[in-house]
C-alpha cells in the first residue's frame, strides 16, 4: 500500500507543467503581439473610428457624425469622379500590364543571353522612381514644346492626315494631353502600364522557370503542333498561380496610383478632376485640407477594395489553380 500509482501522480503535476509552459509561451509571444497590435492594427482601427467623426488635426475635440462621411462618398459628384478615375485606371492598367508582362516574359524567356538585356531594359521604368519619370513625361507631353506633339506635327502634310486624329490635330492643334480632361486619365494609364509591365514580366519570368521542360516535349509528342496549343496545354496552366498573384499585385498597385497624379497636377487631380484617383483623394482630404474624417472614410473604402481583391485571390489560388 506504500506504492503510489505513478499515473495518479503524473495527473496531478501535468496540468501545472502545462500551465507554466503556456504562460511562458504567451510571455515570449507578447512583445511581437503587442507590436503587431500597436503598429499594424491600431492605425487601421483609428482610421476606422475617425471615419465616423469630423475630426481635424489640431482640433481639441471632435463630433461623431455617424455615417455622414460615407454618405458623402456615395452622393457627391467629386467622389463619383473619383470612382470613375480609379476604376478607369484599374480596369485599363491591370489587364494591359499583365498581358504585356506575360507576352514580354514569354518572348524574353525564349531568348538566350540576349534576354538579359531585354530584361534589364524592360525593368528600367520599374527601378526609376515614378515621380522622377513623371517629370520627364511632363516635358515630353507639353502641348507646345513637348517631344510628343512636335513629333506628331511632323506628320502634318503627309498621308498621315487621312487618319482623323492627325487631320484634327493638324487643323486645330494636337491634344493638350495633361491639360485635356478627355486625355488626362489615359495618359496616366499609359504611364502606369509603361512603368508596371516590366515588374509583371519579372514575376512571370520567375513563374516560367518553374515549368517543367519535359511537359513541352510531352505536349509535342501528344500532337500539340502550334505554339498556341503548347501555351494552352502547358504554359498557361502552369502559370496559373503566378497569374493570380500578378493580377492581385497589379490591382493593388493600380488602386494605389498616386505619384503620377501628384507630380502632374499637385493642385487638384487633373483637368476637371478627371484623374482624381482614390489615393490622391485621401491625400487631398486628409492631409491638404485636414479633413481627417472624410480622408479616413476613403481609406476604409480603399482597404475594403484591397481586402476584397485579396480574398478573391486566395479563393482562386485554393480552388482553381492549385494542383
Amino acid at each position: 500500500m506504500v506504492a503510489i500509482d505513478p499515473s495518479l501522480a503524473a495527473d496531478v503535476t501535468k496540468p501545472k507543467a502545462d500551465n507554466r509552459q503556456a504562460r511562458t509561451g504567451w510571455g515570449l509571444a507578447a512583445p511581437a503581439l503587442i507590436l503587431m497590435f500597436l503598429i499594424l492594427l491600431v492605425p487601421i482601427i483609428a482610421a476606422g473610428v475617425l471615419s465616423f467623426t469630423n475630426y481635424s488635426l489640431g482640433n481639441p475635440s471632435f463630433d461623431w457624425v455617424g455615417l455622414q462621411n460615407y454618405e458623402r462618398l456615395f452622393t457627391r459628384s467629386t467622389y463619383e469622379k473619383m470612382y470613375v478615375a480609379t476604376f478607369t485606371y484599374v480596369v485599363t492598367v491591370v489587364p494591359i500590364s499583365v498581358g504585356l508582362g506575360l507576352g514580354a516574359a514569354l518572348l524574353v524567356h525564349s531568348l538566350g543571353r540576349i534576354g538579359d538585356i531585354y530584361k534589364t531594359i524592360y525593368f528600367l521604368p520599374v527601378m526609376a522612381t515614378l515621380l522622377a519619370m513623371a517629370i520627364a513625361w511632363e516635358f515630353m507631353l507639353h502641348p507646345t514644346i513637348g517631344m510628343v506633339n512636335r513629333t506628331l506635327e511632323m506628320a502634318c502634310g503627309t498621308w498621315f492626315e487621312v487618319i482623323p486624329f492627325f487631320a484634327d490635330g493638324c487643323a486645330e492643334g494636337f491634344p493638350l494631353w495633361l491639360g485635356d480632361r478627355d486625355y488626362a486619365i489615359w495618359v496616366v494609364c499609359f504611364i502606369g502600364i509603361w512603368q508596371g509591365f516590366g515588374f509583371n514580366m519579372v514575376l512571370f519570368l520567375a513563374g516560367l522557370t518553374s515549368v517543367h521542360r519535359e511537359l513541352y516535349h510531352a505536349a509535342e509528342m501528344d500532337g500539340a503542333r502550334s505554339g498556341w496549343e503548347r501555351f494552352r496545354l502547358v504554359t498557361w496552366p502552369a502559370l496559373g498561380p503566378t497569374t493570380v498573384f500578378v493580377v492581385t499585385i497589379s490591382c493593388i498597385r493600380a488602386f494605389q496610383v498616386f505619384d503620377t497624379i501628384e507630380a502632374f497636377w499637385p493642385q487638384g487631380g487633373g483637368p476637371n478632376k478627371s484623374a482624381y484617383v482614390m489615393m490622391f483623394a485621401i491625400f487631398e482630404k486628409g492631409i491638404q485640407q485636414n479633413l481627417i474624417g472624410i480622408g479616413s472614410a476613403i481609406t476604409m473604402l480603399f482597404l475594403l477594395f484591397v481586402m476584397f481583391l485579396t480574398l478573391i485571390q486566395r479563393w482562386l489560388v485554393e480552388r482553381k489553380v492549385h494542383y
Partner: protein
Amino acid sequence: MSDLQIASVTKHFGETSVLKGVTLDVKDGEFISLVGPSGCGKSTLLRIIAGLETPTSGNIAIGGINVTQLRAADRNLSMVFQSYALYPHLTVAENIAVPLQMRQMSALQRLPVLGSIVPGARTQKDDIAQAVRHAAEMLEIAALLDRKPGQLSGGQRQRVALGRALVRDPAAFLLDEPLSNLDAKLRVQTRAEIAELHRRLKATFIYVTHDQVEAMTMSDRIAVMMGGEILQCAAPDVIYEDPDDIRVAEFIGSPKINILPVERNGTALTVFDQVLNSRLSIDSPKVMQMGLRPEALQLTQSAPRLTGRVVHLENLGSEVFAQIALDSDGSRVTLRAMPEQRQNLGLGAPVGLSFDLNAAMIFDAGGARLRQVELAATRAAEVA
C-alpha cells in the same frame, strides 16, 4: 505499328559529339532496350527517334518512310518520360485524353465552351472517353480517372503516363527510363507488366534504361551503348554469354565479370605465368585479357589455376558471392558459390579456383573479342 530504321545518326552539341554514327534496325513488334551508363547518348538517341532533337547527320525511317525532317507531333510515336510529364492541372482522364483530343478534334472543337456546340464534337468526345476508359481498364487505373496527378503515387503516375502513351495507336512506343523513379519492389512488378503489355499490344517498344536487369528481363534485343556508339545489339542471352567487346561484358552481368591479364609466350597462353595451353598461333597478340563470369569459377582443392584468400562475402540466400584477393597480384575476383560451399569460404580462408577454358572470353588489349584465340585455346584444351 511498323519497323524503324536508324541509319548512321550522329549528334554534336557544339564541340562534343554525343552520337558517333548509330545504326540500328528495329523490327515491327520488337522490344529493344537501349542500355548504357549515363552520358552514353541513349536518351539523346531516343529523343532523336522521337523528333524532339534533330540529328546532325543520318536518317530515321519509320515504316520505310524517312521521317528525319518530320516534327515530333507528326511522327505518330508515343513517349513515356522519366518524370512522367503529366499535365498537373488535368485529371487522369483528361491527361490520357490529350493525345486523342489533339489529333482527332479540330482546334474549334477543343475550345472550352464553344467547342461543345461545334457539330460532331459530342460524338468525338464520347469516342475519346470510351478510349480513355479502355486504356485505364487495361492499366487498372479506372478508379483514379477523376484525380489529379498531384494526388497519385509514383507508381500510379507511371501508369497514367503509360495510359497516355497507349491510348492511341502509335507506330512505336518510346520509353525513357520509366521505372527509375519507382521503388525497388514496384520496379520489379512494373517491369513484368510492361513486358506483358508489349506481348499484348504486339507493338514496337524502344526502351531506354541504365539498368541492365531491366534490359535483360524485358527485351527481345539489347543495344549496349557506350561513348555514343552501339557496341553490340543482340538478344539478352547473346549479350551476356557472347559479348563482342570487353565493355559490353563488363557492363552486363551482376556482379561484374572478372578480368584477368593473360599473355602469349611463344605459343603458350599464360595467366600469372601459369600455362593454360600451348596451341596459340604466333600472330595472336602478346598481351590479352580474359573475362570469366563469377559462375565460371569453381572452388577446387586439387591443382587450382588460381589461388587466393576470401576478403568479402555476400550471402544472398540462394547463392553466395565471394570476393577473392588473388595471391599472384592481389587483384580481386568474384566467385559465385552455392550456399552449401559457404563453410569453405570463411573470411581470410585460402581458396583454390579453377575454371573451364570454354567459359573464358578472351579480349585484346583494346577490348575487342578474340574468338580465334579462344577457338585455338579451347581446341588445344580438348586435345590435352
